[in-house]
């Protein structure tokens, strides 16, 4: 018996009718760089659309596991993306309510016997229907202290991550080397996480674009010489110790604002325009210690 006549399936209309397009565009616009993250989000969005299409023709569509692990150097956007991931997944239709509960070890681990389980379960109940974000997840596991109750919290997490996959998405974040050691000692946790995403360091161009976006959000603008100066600053700062990507750039911009404010204050007799309040000049950037070979403070 031949297969029944199959009508052509239209993915394009489904895409245009859903809210997926605007979510992806907002992501591309508001976060600079982060190619692996954006690729993965696009893949999840495509899977969502295909699943919906499969449902219309009666094929089975099961929700994939969405637990994620974000690793990377300081200031590469792990916490920022995790905070956005809740609303992204909600607008893609993967989580029901789309709220984010951000916890660290203290919120999960108790101080005495019998304290950990209720504490962890309370947090998990609050996070149901949304995303649970565990920052610095490796602190949960303290092998050197046998009276530590972190292992209990991990056990409960493992159970919930496996059984209540449709209700909760767990995102762990932390620095790469420590997270790797953490996963090696907790293979169950590592295997339950479907998406291990590494956040690469930003390039100079990306850091400059981030700086411009930050300034735009704070309603400042750079003069042309200041823009050149900022590019040089970024290249120099990268070579110095304790470079923290976007966070270093944000700190630098805050210091530049301080210097701009000081400059304006010292010239306070002279007439001041709105433009002058908004513009960060070349001196405000170039008077940084970084240009003289000193340490950024």
């Amino acid at each position, binding site marked *: 018996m031949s297969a029944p006549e199959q009508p052509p399936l239209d993915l394009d209309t489904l895409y245009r009718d859903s809210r997926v397009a605007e979510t992806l565009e907002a992501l591309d616009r508001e976060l600079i760089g982060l190619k692996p993250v954006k690729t993965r989000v696009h893949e999840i969005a495509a899977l969502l659309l295909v699943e919906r299409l499969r449902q219309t023709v009666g094929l089975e569509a099961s929700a994939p596991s969405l637990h994620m692990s974000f690793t990377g150097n300081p200031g590469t956007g792990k916490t920022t993306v995790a905070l956005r991931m809740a609303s992204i997944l909600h607008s893609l239709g993967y989580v029901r309510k789309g709220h984010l509960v951000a916890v660290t070890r203290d919120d999960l681990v108790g101080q005495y016997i019998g304290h950990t389980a209720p504490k962890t379960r309370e947090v998990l*109940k609050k996070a149901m229907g949304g995303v649970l974000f565990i920052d610095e997840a490796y602190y949960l596991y303290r092998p050197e202290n046998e009276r530590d109750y972190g292992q209990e919290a991990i056990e409960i997490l493992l159970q919930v991550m496996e059984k209540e996959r449709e*209700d909760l998405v767990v995102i762990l974040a932390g620095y790469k080397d420590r997270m790797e050691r953490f996963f090696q000692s907790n293979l169950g946790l590592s295997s339950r996480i479907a998406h291990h995403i590494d956040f690469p360091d930003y390039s100079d161009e990306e850091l400059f674009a981030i700086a411009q976006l930050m300034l735009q959000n704070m309603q400042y603008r750079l003069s042309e010489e200041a823009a050149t100066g900022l590019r040089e600053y970024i290249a120099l700062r990268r070579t110095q110790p304790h470079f923290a990507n976007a966070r270093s750039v944000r700190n630098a911009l805050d210091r530049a604002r301080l210097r701009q404010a000081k400059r304006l204050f010292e010239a306070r007799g002279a007439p001041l325009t709105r433009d002058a309040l908004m513009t960060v000049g070349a001196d405000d950037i170039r008077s940084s210690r970084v240009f003289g070979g000193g340490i950024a403070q």
Partner: protein
Amino acid sequence: MRITQGTFSFLPDLTDAEIEAQVEYCLSNGWAVSVEYTDDPHPRNSYWEMFGRPMFDLKDAAGVMAEIRGCRDTFASHYIKVNAFDAARGVESLRLSFIVNRPENEPGFSLAREEGKGRRVRYTTRAYAADKPEGARY
């Protein structure tokens, strides 16, 4: 006889999906949901035992359903009810309270008469279940 205490008590037992829908309604109104159990069916028994703490700040019914399931597993033949508490100023009381679990056989109530001074008769209800000690009633 089915005791008819709380909301929906004249309807057939709510399915899990219906309970979840009711809990979602409560949570969407910002009410705190709690689970209580008892084996004393007297209508004036207003202080049931709490199962776990009241759940404030919950966004989704999945957590509450897990508590209800846990309570059903532990106390399969007790009465279990779900309360929703509204903390808004001026209300500060329960908004919704419905039974989600009953024992298989509910023996019902008897009417007890007490003759007092001047041959005045006072009436009260007594639950047949209360003849047995707590914990061994159903």
